[in-house]
């Protein structure tokens, strides 16, 4: 394989710019999906009537439709009812829509792993529900949820490649663009893979470090 390094160097700035966009969408999308996840999981955990049903429906829709379809819906569908969002906003909201359900399920499994006796013991100390959630349930749930949440973070970053489908110039989009323009398939794809690895490897390493820390710190009674 003969790689055209001049080409790679020339279009490096394109990739850098695209990487920034990918990271930006991933960052805000994941942040938002964590927020959605926390709210949904807490509602499910406390079995709050009605809202809980709505959230179950959301989780099923979110998990059982492809991200590309969700993005098309936001980008091409919503304008038909008068809601026009930029492609970037659509990408972030789409990612949060998808990620929210995954995060919710991971966090919920953590919440439900906290023993009932912990909650009763907090209650017997006169702690309110909110205080119990904040001081007793949530910190313990976190330790259980983290591996799942980390896996979701990585999954969602890789999913950002789909936003090229609504004409956002992310890494995937730039790659397809360059291949289409110059037929430099090898170079473009190698750069794509390398850039994803540059973004994802450190996150993977940090995630496994956090997981290890939590495991060793293993609360265990």
């Amino acid at each position, binding site marked *: 394989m003969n790689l055209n390094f001049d080409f790679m160097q020339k279009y490096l700035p394109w990739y850098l710019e695209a990487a920034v966009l990918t990271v930006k969408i991933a960052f805000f999308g994941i942040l938002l999906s964590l927020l959605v996840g926390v709210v949904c999981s807490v509602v499910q955990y406390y079995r709050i009537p009605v809202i809980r049903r709505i959230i179950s429906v959301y989780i099923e829709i979110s998990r059982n439709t492809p991200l590309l379809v969700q993005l098309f819906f936001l980008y091409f569908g919503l304008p038909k009812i008068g809601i026009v969002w930029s492609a970037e906003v659509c990408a972030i909201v789409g990612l949060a829509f998808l990620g929210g359900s995954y995060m919710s399920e991971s966090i919920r499994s953590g919440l439900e792993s906290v*023993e009932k*006796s*912990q909650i*009763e*013991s*907090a*209650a*017997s*100390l*006169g*702690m*309110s529900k909110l*205080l119990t959630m904040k*001081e*007793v349930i949530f*910190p*313990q749930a976190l*330790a259980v949820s983290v591996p799942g949440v980390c896996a979701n973070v990585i999954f969602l970053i890789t999913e950002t490649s789909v936003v090229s489908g609504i004409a956002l110039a992310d890494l995937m989009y730039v790659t397809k663009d360059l291949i289409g323009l110059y037929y430099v398939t090898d170079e473009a794809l190698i750069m794509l893979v390398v850039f994803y690895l540059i973004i994802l490897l450190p996150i993977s390493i940090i995630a496994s470090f956090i997981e290890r820390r939590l495991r060793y710190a*293993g*609360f*265990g*009674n």
Partner: protein
Amino acid sequence: MENIQLQVSGLIKRFGTETVLNGIDLSVRKGEVVVVLGPSGCGKSTLLRCMNGLEPKSAGTILLDGEEVTSDSKKIAQLRQKIGMVFQSYDLFPHKNIMDNITLAPVKVQKRSKKEVEQDAERLLKRVGLWEKRKAYPRELSGGQKQRVAIIRALCMNPEVMLFDEVTAALDPEMVREVLDVILELAESGMTMVIVTHEMQFARAIADRIIFLDNGKIVENSPPELFFTNPQTQRAKDFLQTFAYEKRRTAIN
């Protein structure tokens, strides 16, 4: 009777169709130590759990200092500050060290100053010989140590009544003593207590009054000496016999 701190009347508790407590009437005077005995499944724990509103009651009233204990009331959190409860499984918060376990509720619930609570905690931890463990996490402690911390955690709320739900049931035999000693000391200091236990010797030593529960009813309510030497009902006799049998077996060995 005067000075009644805890008054239970006509308490009924059902789980589905099963009636676990079937009309309990019981009053506990200030400073009194009441030990609840009975075969397993007789509703001892349920009775305690009703007393601090962990179980909603099906009928009847429970009054603490004349205030109604209801599990659905918003006031229950307020009321629970007056009733300390210690469980069989310790239930310390595993993610907090010993000191934080103790100070959490007094600081966040009662809004007392952290310094003041820590002074209380220091005094109590020193008394039970666990001051050195203040920075340790619950997992680093033995069962007996954890249970002593759990007692201190409840005490730091300055409760008026303490409820003990089989607090030594999960402990190795040699650790039972260190926990029971703390409770004995507490009784001497005049704390009002309701204790569920299977330690008969301990019950006899600490109780001002023994309540014997069977099938959700109080079948005996008598001073410990009377109860252990001359139980009034056949049911209580049979119950005590099971412990005597254990004793004979060890005698043969």
